[in-house]
């Protein structure tokens, strides 16, 4: 069972840039409902920058993730920039030095990303943030790997769990991020960061060849 290499990592990040651009308006609308209406713009700006930085960049998956992380940190701003940036940075540290990532390495990547996110943003699952996508994703990835899934299957499990987690944010009352200012009124809307995180993880699975 061959691991996923730098080509996959690059493809993931480029697909993410495309999918975020495609869903820019939808993410803006989600953020307008319970935030300040810029999430689609923020991530679009960041991942476009990542895409152009990737042009000519070489190295291991970890190198590319680190490049993407620092680019996100220095171009996105807002809450999502440092949070996603930190997630990716911690993820890259977890798989440092490897040319190819097998299922366990992918679990390590996603778990470290989720942990980085949580330790930076202090949100817990159920607070209606992107943690609600990353946390089930990391768990599902672990479970899939334990059950012997291929790397593509691990990523597909993560994406599906993230999508479920994002959908599950709808009824929640936010306790972190801007949506928390709304109190009860935040219920009934999907969290934009959880939604974009699900898109990002679905791109990872697609880049690995999973439809």
């Amino acid at each position, binding site marked *: 069972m061959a691991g996923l290499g730098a080509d996959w990592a690059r493809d993931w990040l480029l697909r993410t840039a495309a999918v975020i651009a495609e869903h820019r308006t939808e993410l803006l609308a989600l953020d307008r409902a319970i935030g300040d*209406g810029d999430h689609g713009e923020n991530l679009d700006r960041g991942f476009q920058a990542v895409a152009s930085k990737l042009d000519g960049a070489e190295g291991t998956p970890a190198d590319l993730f680190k490049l993407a992380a620092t680019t996100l940190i220095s171009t996105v701003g807002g809450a999502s920039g440092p949070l996603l940036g930190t997630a990716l940075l911690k993820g890259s540290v977890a798989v440092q030095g490897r040319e190819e990532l097998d299922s366990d390495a992918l679990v390590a990547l996603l778990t470290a990303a989720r942990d980085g996110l949580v330790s930076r*943003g202090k949100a817990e699952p159920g607070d209606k943030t992107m943690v609600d996508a990353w946390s089930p994703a990391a768990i599902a990835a672990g479970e899939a790997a334990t059950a012997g899934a291929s790397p593509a299957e691990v990523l597909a499990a993560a994406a599906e769990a993230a999508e479920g987690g994002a959908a599950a944010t709808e009824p929640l009352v936010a306790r972190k991020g801007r949506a928390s200012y709304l109190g009860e009124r935040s219920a009934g809307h999907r969290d934009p960061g959880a939604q974009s995180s699900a898109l990002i993880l679905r791109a990872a699975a697609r880049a690995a060849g999973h439809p």
Partner: protein
Amino acid sequence: MKKLVNDPKRVVEESVAGFASAHADLVTASSDPLFIARAGGATRGKVGLVSGGGSGHEPLHAGFVGYGMLDAAVPGPVFTSPTPDPIVAATKAADGGAGVLHIVKNYTGDVLNFETAADLALAEGIEVRAVVTDDDVAVRDSLYTAGRRGVAGTVLVERIAGAAAERGDDLDAVAGIAERVNANVRSMGVALTPCVVPHAGEPSFELADDEIELGIGIHGEPGRTRTKLVSADEVVDLLLDPILADLPFGEGDRTLLFVNGMGGTPLVELYIFFRRAAEVLGERGIAVERSLVGNFVTSLEMQGASITVLKLDDELVELWDSPLHTAALRWGR
């Protein structure tokens, strides 16, 4: 909604260029990374003050760069916290060797990006302290939320801490004054209309013709409760009650009363607001010793206003009154 802009993506950049050109005697702007600093450079031996955050709240923060207030300001994209790089650059520009105070409004994005910037600045040998402002009583405490937001009270923190720095206080003392102002200031706002972020092109929320949004923030985010449009005096009461109950303010207190416009509300209305607010404070035996009325912490073209009350003592009054020279606030020189 119509706007006087060119490319929506270049709004902040072009506006900063215009600002720097209109106030070349006061400020210089760096365009990449984007920040504004005092024209003369950092003052040697003085604590530097840096603030920043999403754009769209003008004159906050660039309008407050100058003698007696900030040394540098970092404007992010509209309503989006700037990234660490320009904050680091602004911190360097503000550093006169006595350390730099970051004044950060309490939003997850601002706090995280300023934190990263502080780490990076420290790595370059600049001592940085941060004060996070959170004066908005409309938000429940951090058990349930990201914590209270920093809103109009931030101007008072920047002004008074700036005066302390100008007086020669060291970093700990300036940070202490900033904390003291933040601890003694409370705000709450109301919106009559939403605002439109240039690159979004759609209103940040919908309000019926007879509705107002109470406890509004300054980023076009919806407020906490929506209610029928009532008279200005009634709105003032709805805002002042939670403000006065929170600190709490009481008989014999000396205060600064600040009525802030959200950008699209005419001055006539702000003064009608002020009139009632001063009246209510008077009835409760609270003295209004200083006042400020105008559009200082705005939310683009949003119609609405906020009320801010700061409890004063002799030292704060003295610092407030000391000479000040910025584009948006000026006295004594």
